[in-house]
């Protein structure tokens, strides 16, 4: 594997993103629009759940981070399918770049974009929506990073398993929304039916929500995020494994041109 080639591919992805910035709008702007809308609703739920001094943003910001953060999965997949649509996939493969160079080169900018999304969202929350970070910031950054890596790994795994952009589009966004709901990112888990709470740990979103809630709302120590980080890392490893096992670089895929 070559870091130089991976970085060249990553820079190229950023160049394409700059020319066609719609993913940036969805990932960076939409959470900023949604967070204030949900803030008031979540404020009532937080008071009921024993956080009388919490602002709605204390839940809305992590919730939007978790919900929109997982949209990185379909957007990561689009980077691969777009190369099929533009026929550049074979050209990339015929270059000296190895399979690992290509995957890392496409994953890197999405991880960076995910972290940027979270940084902007938290800064926006703190400056305009009265977000209070009661605990330490570093554990939130650590959880965010592993969560973003997990979402990107899901994107690569979906790419490996699916054949068309249409499939990725449907499964990626619907799956992210559904898992977000199950994981407690759309509404607080305490307001959902019991069976939902029982299956919630099967969603990466649950662990990200749990960790950020512990730190932001409950002022728990940094050690409280260790288990969620480990679980998210295991999720990531599983999706990477699926991607490695299922990815066939010579498999034709149907991409939007």
């Amino acid at each position, binding site marked *: 594997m070559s870091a130089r080639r991976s970085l060249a591919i990553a820079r190229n992805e950023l160049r394409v993103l700059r020319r066609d910035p719609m993913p940036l709008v969805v990932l960076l702007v939409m959470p900023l629009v949604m967070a204030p809308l949900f803030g008031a609703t979540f404020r009532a739920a937080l008071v009921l759940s024993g956080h009388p001094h919490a602002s709605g943003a204390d839940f809305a910001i992590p919730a939007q981070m978790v919900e929109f953060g997982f949209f990185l999965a379909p957007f990561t997949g689009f980077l691969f399918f777009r190369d099929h649509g533009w*026929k550049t996939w074979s050209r990339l493969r015929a270059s000296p770049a190895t399979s690992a160079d290509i995957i890392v080169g496409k994953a890197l900018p999405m991880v960076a974009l995910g972290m940027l999304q979270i940084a902007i969202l938290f800064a926006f929350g703190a400056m305009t929506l009265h977000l209070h970070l009661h605990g330490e910031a570093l554990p939130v950054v650590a959880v965010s990073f592993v969560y973003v890596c997990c979402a990107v790994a899901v994107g690569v795994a979906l790419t490996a398993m699916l054949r068309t952009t249409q499939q990725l589009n449907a499964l990626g966004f619907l799956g992210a929304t559904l898992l977000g709901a199950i994981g407690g990112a759309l509404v607080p888990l305490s307001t959902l039916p019991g069976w939902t709470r029982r299956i919630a740990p099967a969603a990466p979103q649950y662990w990200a929500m749990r960790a950020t809630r512990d730190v932001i709302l409950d002022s728990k120590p940094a050690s409280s995020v260790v288990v969620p980080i480990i679980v998210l890392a295991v999720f990531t490893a599983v999706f990477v494994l699926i991607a490695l096992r299922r990815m066939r670089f010579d498999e034709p895929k149907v991409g939007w041109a």
Partner: protein
Amino acid sequence: MLTAVDVTKHYGSRPALTGVSFEVAAGEVFALLGPNGAGKSTLVSIVAALRPPDSGRVFVDGIDAVADPSRVRRRIGLASQETALYEVLTVRENLAFFGELVGLGRRSRAARIDELAAALRLEPLLDRAALQLSGGERRRLHIAIAFLNRPLLLLLDEATVGADIETRAALLEVVRRAAGDGAAVLYSTHYLPEVETLDATVGILVDGRMIAAARVDDLVAAHGCCAVELSFDGVPPAVDLGDLRASVDGSVIRVDTPDPVRAVPLIISRLGVLAGSLCGVEVLRPSLDSVFLTLTGRRFVSESVDVSAA
């Protein structure tokens, strides 16, 4: 530079290539000639180490393409049949990205881009997005990318399909120059005149089998024939052509003769009133076309030049 030994490939139960063997030396242009579905693109993709053969070996510069695809890819430049470009990026950005991938440093990359832009008349287009280019301009950029790393082996898979005459001429000139500089060129094409222009060695691929491989002159000397083809609108009429050897292929009567010019008046006179139903008369001289006819029993159908397609 390129050696393929007994290469076989199936898609499911359908054979795409069967026992294909050939060699291309440094500085040689090897034209892969065959109709659609003959297996040309499959063969090119195997040589480019994009897919493995079911059996057989491919060596590029002595390196096994299956065992060590990464080293092989450092030595090749590939232009596939379909233009492969980052549509929203400019011509310069497309060239720069692939130049970076093949390991060109900043300065040598800039110099190489200027060089190729001049050779393929892309200079005024360097800051234009790929999606704003015409078909011919896209084709020139597509080909230019394959030349970035001065490859030891150029793989051009129907690279001029859909190109206008001007683009075609520029591309052929660049290919000739690359071969002159010592690159081996595997040039898959539908166009017989290109093969003759490139003074190439020819491999004729039909139904996945390499049925002949030699210099054009040698092939023509060995298999070229003369014939007269009479085209009718529909099933040809039954005609007694005397001693002339004739065969029917669809709506065409083909008459094999060593002296077609003398044969034509004779054939027309034998047709009598039926000559009125003739749609066309064509004289075939010893050429690649007639070689293909001799070897396969059918004419080679080149695609027409479409200046609008890309």
